């Protein structure tokens, strides 16, 4: 058997050498859903998957770390840990074994932000599951944004909506924390609820904004608009290049 395989292995090596020359880069072995592929070492997980020939349908969105579509689980040789990351911004490593999460099963509560009050118990009333938190911090360790997820879940339990909003501000809702949570909490939904509650009910009001909306509704700018809208290109040009600049 061994002798039968040898020519194929030689051929495989030649092909890898060819790929290496094409991209002028060192190549590494990665295991995509268990299957070995040879990809450039400076590739992100997402580009490695595409380099291998996959057309990603589920598992790519913004490709820049904002949308949370590309949550990925991976292991590394000689490391007991199950790692988490976004495929778009995590680099491959030799021997990495990975799989993308096509969708995270999730139940979002239905509510009316207008009618909710930002009370101490609101978060627990909307997401009672939060009370199951055992403060193990697995969620924070899983967060590809390095957010203090457990801290904001705990802040939510205490009813500190402002702190939840602040700590969860950069959440990309990839759902990796929810997948890893042994208490089956959905932290990112708690974050979204808290941000909305803060923006709606706990904000400081802007009087200037109120005033500007009143002015627009009262038609204060109508005459000026009417004049600008029929103005010829030359006059507009003069007005535009002659306008003063706020420092």
């Amino acid at each position: 058997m061994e002798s039968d395989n040898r020519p194929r292995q030689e051929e495989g090596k030649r092909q890898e050498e060819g790929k290496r020359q094409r991209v002028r880069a060192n190549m590494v072995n990665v295991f995509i859903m268990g299957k070995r592929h040879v990809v450039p070492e400076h590739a992100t997980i997402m580009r490695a998957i595409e380099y291998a020939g996959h057309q990603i349908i589920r598992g790519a969105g913004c490709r820049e770390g904002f949308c949370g579509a590309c949550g990925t689980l991976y292991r590394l040789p000689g490391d007991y840990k199950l790692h988490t990351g976004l495929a778009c911004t995590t680099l491959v490593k030799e021997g990495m074994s990975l799989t993308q999460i096509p969708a995270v099963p999730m139940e979002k509560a239905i509510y009316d932000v207008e009618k909710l009050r930002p009370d101490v118990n609101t978060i627990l009333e909307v997401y009672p599951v939060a009370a199951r938190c055992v403060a193990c911090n697995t969620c924070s360790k899983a967060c590809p944004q390095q957010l203090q997820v457990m801290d904001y879940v705990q802040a939510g339990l205490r009813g500190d909506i402002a702190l939840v909003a602040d700590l969860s501000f950069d959440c990309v809702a990839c759902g990796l924390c929810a997948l890893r949570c042994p208490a089956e909490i959905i932290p990112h939904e708690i974050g979204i609820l808290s941000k909305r509650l803060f923006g709606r009910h706990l904000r400081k009001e802007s009087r200037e904004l109120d005033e500007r909306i009143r002015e627009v509704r009262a038609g204060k700018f109508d005459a000026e608009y009417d004049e600008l809208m029929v103005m010829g290109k030359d006059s507009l040009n003069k007005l535009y290049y002659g306008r003063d600049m706020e420092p």
Partner: protein
Amino acid sequence: MYPDYLSESLQAVERTRPGRLELAMSGQPVYPPMNADERKDVLSKYHPDFTPGAKRPVRVGPNRGEDITTEVADILEAHSMIEPKLMDIHLREPDYETDLLIIGGGGAGCWAAITAARNGMKSLIATKLRMGDANTMMSEGGMQAAVSPTDSPTRHYLDAIGGGHFENKPELVRVLTEDAPEVVRELENLGVIWDKMGDGSMQVLHGGGTSRKRMVSCRDYIGAIIMRTLMDEVKNHPDMISLREFEPAVELILDDKGRCAGAVLYDLDTEQFLTVRAKATIISTGGFGRLHIRGFATTNHYGATGDGLVMAYRAGANLKFMDSVQYHPTGAVFPEQIAGFLITEKIRGAGGQPLNKFGELFVWPREPRDVESAAIIRECSSDRNNGVDTFAGRSGVWLDSPLIDMIHGAGYTRHQFPGMCRQFDRFGIDIVKQPMLVYPSLHYQNGGIEINERCETSIPGLFVAGEASGGVHGRNRLMGNSVLDYNVFGRRAGRHASEYAKSATLGRLNVDHVRTHAEELVREGIDTDLVSPLILPSYTPEDVKIQQLARLGNVPARHSMLRSRFTPGERKTHL
């Protein structure tokens, strides 16, 4: 960490920094802003829109004979994904029925659905990937709205129309700027957390081309915050809004009176074609960055392939300003893994400066985007050779971010730009202490399907909102006006489409325009293997692609993506 070969240039940046800081603190412009002639000169010589081959006359459809961006003309002259005669039975018995069909689940689409629900109309959002997989999600810096006492909506109008070289449709710019303060309040009522001053007033910053501080923001995650708020609100109305994800529309459906009556969807999971009958249809499909026009890397999300343009054009809608493309002045150049990624304009709004390899300013940091981009391209061109070259074969200029903490105080950058810091921290670059290397990146579709202030098109029953639309920005959009655009026109589309749908009646459904388009391709002698909408770009290496396309016979539709000719520049040279 920057490699050693860049250290000499980095030192030059540090050497010139104290002098540039002093200039910035003086309140005077740090570099002379260009006048009209200088702008014209740099644009005509260096903007990618004016390079040979950038545009060509389109040979079919309503804009026949007009110059259009080449890559766009190519997809307008491509084959449909569907065979009309096989659709008959599904047109008689549609898979879905709804008041409003909303194509695209980004900011504009979600706003349209929320507004329709408030008007008592049911809608169906059909979107290519997940709801929120859209350029909306990725905007970082801010939204323009004349909310400060020093500012006015008419001043905003003047800045926007000047930035667009006075070609924008005036009625669109008016509603854009006039609705802006109300949009700020409406978003806040849905729960968006704005950056505010201690007294509750809105924090405002400058952007390119603004004469007043007008940029409102959510740290540097404005898109993520607004998009998740709108998505959450959409999901709170399951009785009024239904959602079909991974089901992009590929053709519009008309009725026998030429009114838009829905669309054909393509299920990416099962590869089925599904039909929707709708009293009114809204296209909110966003832009076209993934066409990688002129080989540029892009800041856009994965699905930005201009599908709305293709569908609407085949159905007979007119396009406007489709000969111009926006390149964001500052896309990342180093490290290679994030090449093309957006570096928010808010960096320059907060005092960041673009510098050449000698650490010198060469352009005012806040010119309108097309002018700023062209100036950066000029600096890196062989005419000046002042760019910083990377070993990966790219060229760029420095964007000096350490100035920001020096101007606003320690800690400002980390609080206001958490996303930018995180992006570079990953690669050992602290943007509080070191500049970023940047070059223009393909960013925005300036033109699109022509609309009026009610978001109506030349096809009755077809409405368009957001980046897919054309007219509001002329041939150059200012920073923060696209976030505003999808908010203003998403709401308007929802409102006006609802009004229309209340009294709309539909005749017999058909896709005859697809047949007509096929005949036109034959008549014009157009020989192409391209199928559009492209749906997704293909980043498969060419040799692998060839092996995949060796299949005999009826190639599954998914492989239309494979046939994409628009292999991005980034793939050709590097991974």
